């Protein structure tokens, strides 16, 4: 079972007019694995994630996803109804800005409960119970579940987003700069939490980041992107300790060590 990749991306490409954002990106993702996508600003990381997450239609390529049932679906070719149903039930997407990933008009509990209601949960008590458990899992006091997300700190909002995305037990979680905009100590705790939850839940994750430290801590494997292309791919430690591509060498050597 785990010998088959849960996600196989081949030849993914996306251009905005004449500006190429992603060119011929191919990779595989195995169940329970964390893959980091690193690169400088404008290298196409976020476009790649948005193509996978169904926010942007890719121009070319295939995104084959193995469902829980074992069935393999090409998300690019699938009907919009099926694609959205799969993304809703079996994927999660933690957005860079919590305002994109949360509903700020409703309480934290409703935010965590919404994915459950979207896949057919109709029992208030059960929904509330799961929401409470997941808030606890991401270290938010369940007593605050009826508070609005706007009353939460940036780190809490990000953790709330994570709870909202894991509550349906997805097979894959996409994370776009999950620690962006947070101060260093909060970042460290959040990374710890993500690492623990991803391991416990056994979900596969694709984490986009420009921070090599985040990649080092979280990821099993890495893709290095530059100008829309994957220039290097490999095991995180191997790649960071012995970068082969000139750009990766530059990236690794640019990290400040304190």
């Amino acid at each position: 079972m785990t010998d088959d990749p849960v996600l196989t991306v081949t030849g993914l490409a996306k251009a905005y007019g004449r500006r190429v954002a992603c060119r011929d990106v191919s990779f595989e993702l195995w169940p329970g694995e964390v893959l980091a996508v690193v690169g400088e600003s404008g290298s196409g990381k976020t476009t790649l994630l948005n193509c996978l997450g169904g926010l942007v239609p890719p121009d070319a390529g295939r995104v084959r996803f193995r469902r829980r049932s074992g069935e393999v679906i090409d998300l690019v070719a699938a009907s919009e109804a099926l694609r959205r149903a799969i993304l809703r039930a079996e994927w999660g997407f933690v957005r860079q800005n919590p305002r994109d990933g949360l509903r700020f008009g409703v309480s934290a509990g409703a935010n965590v409960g919404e994915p459950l209601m979207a896949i057919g949960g109709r029992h208030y008590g059960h929904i509330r119970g799961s929401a409470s458990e997941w808030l606890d899992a991401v270290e938010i006091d369940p007593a605050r579940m009826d508070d609005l997300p706007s009353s939460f700190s940036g780190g809490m909002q990000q953790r709330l987003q994570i709870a909202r995305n894991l509550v349906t037990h997805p097979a894959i979680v996409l994370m776009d700069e999950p620690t962006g905009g947070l101060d260093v100590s909060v970042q460290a705790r959040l990374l710890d939490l993500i690492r623990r939850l991803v391991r416990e839940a056994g979900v596969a994750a694709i984490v986009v980041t420009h921070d090599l430290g985040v990649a080092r801590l979280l990821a099993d494997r890495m893709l290095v992107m530059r100008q829309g292309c994957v220039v290097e791919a490999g095991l995180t430690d191997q790649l960071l300790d012995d970068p082969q591509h000139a750009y990766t060498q530059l990236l690794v050597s640019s990290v400040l060590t304190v």
Partner: protein
Amino acid sequence: MTADGYNFGYLDEQTKRMIRRAILKGVAIPGYQVPFGSREMPLPYGWGTGGIQITAAVIGPGDTLKVIDQGADDTTNAVSIRNFFVRMCDVATTERTAEASIIQTRHRIPERKLAPGQILVYQVPIPEPLRWLEPRETETRKMHALREYGVMHVKLYEDISVKGRVSTAYDYPVLVNGRYIMRPSPIPKFDTPKMHRMAALQLFGAGREKRIYAVPPYTDVVPLDFEDHPFTIETWDQACALCGATTSFLDEVILDDRGRRMFVCSDTDFCQERREAGHRGDGGPNPLEEAAE
């Protein structure tokens, strides 16, 4: 005779045909909002332009029209719309629910069970049930198309967690024919169960928003709820002070500035019929007696 220079029913025949096509499409797809070319009417948006256009498109010389506003036949909106159709169509009008072939309504469904062949026309201010949850019209249409209605329950969840119960008391969202979620126009939730498998044809017109939708006779109309927080309707611990009814929707009437009030049926025809049949309420507190003290 209708007013000089005007077509029967005010609208020109091409417009009526356009509206009838939209109605037929709406009937074919219960609960689906059909866009239509809403016309300028001789009254402002929000005063029932959608309902009037539907009535004008379906009314014929042999019809008997009843118009109610908040259940009453004698309120400004109801009287004005009824007069409008008398001038434009010279049709018979009635205040009796049973005698009407077309009933245009704002905010209520008559208490008397409607019969096959009757048409109930609703005036709709905002047709889109997803509006406050998803402001993008392109996105709400997609959500309807793909039946992505999970977010509707978020609102109910929020009501229960904040207020302990579902506080939506009017325009309660319903699932029509197991497919589309629909706003039933601002009727109290007391009236929502009456829509379920109703024998009459229900037509909904939103003039400003340019949408028509319909519920054909005997169609399932189910209010949204949670398994452990089922849908409930309003109840009163009083009876109607005029007719003694305990099963109708009651309006609270404030009698003075000392907190005295009475409850009376909001459906004036229902109340009248009961009184003619000999039913009597307790009359409520007598405002003249108290004022004399």
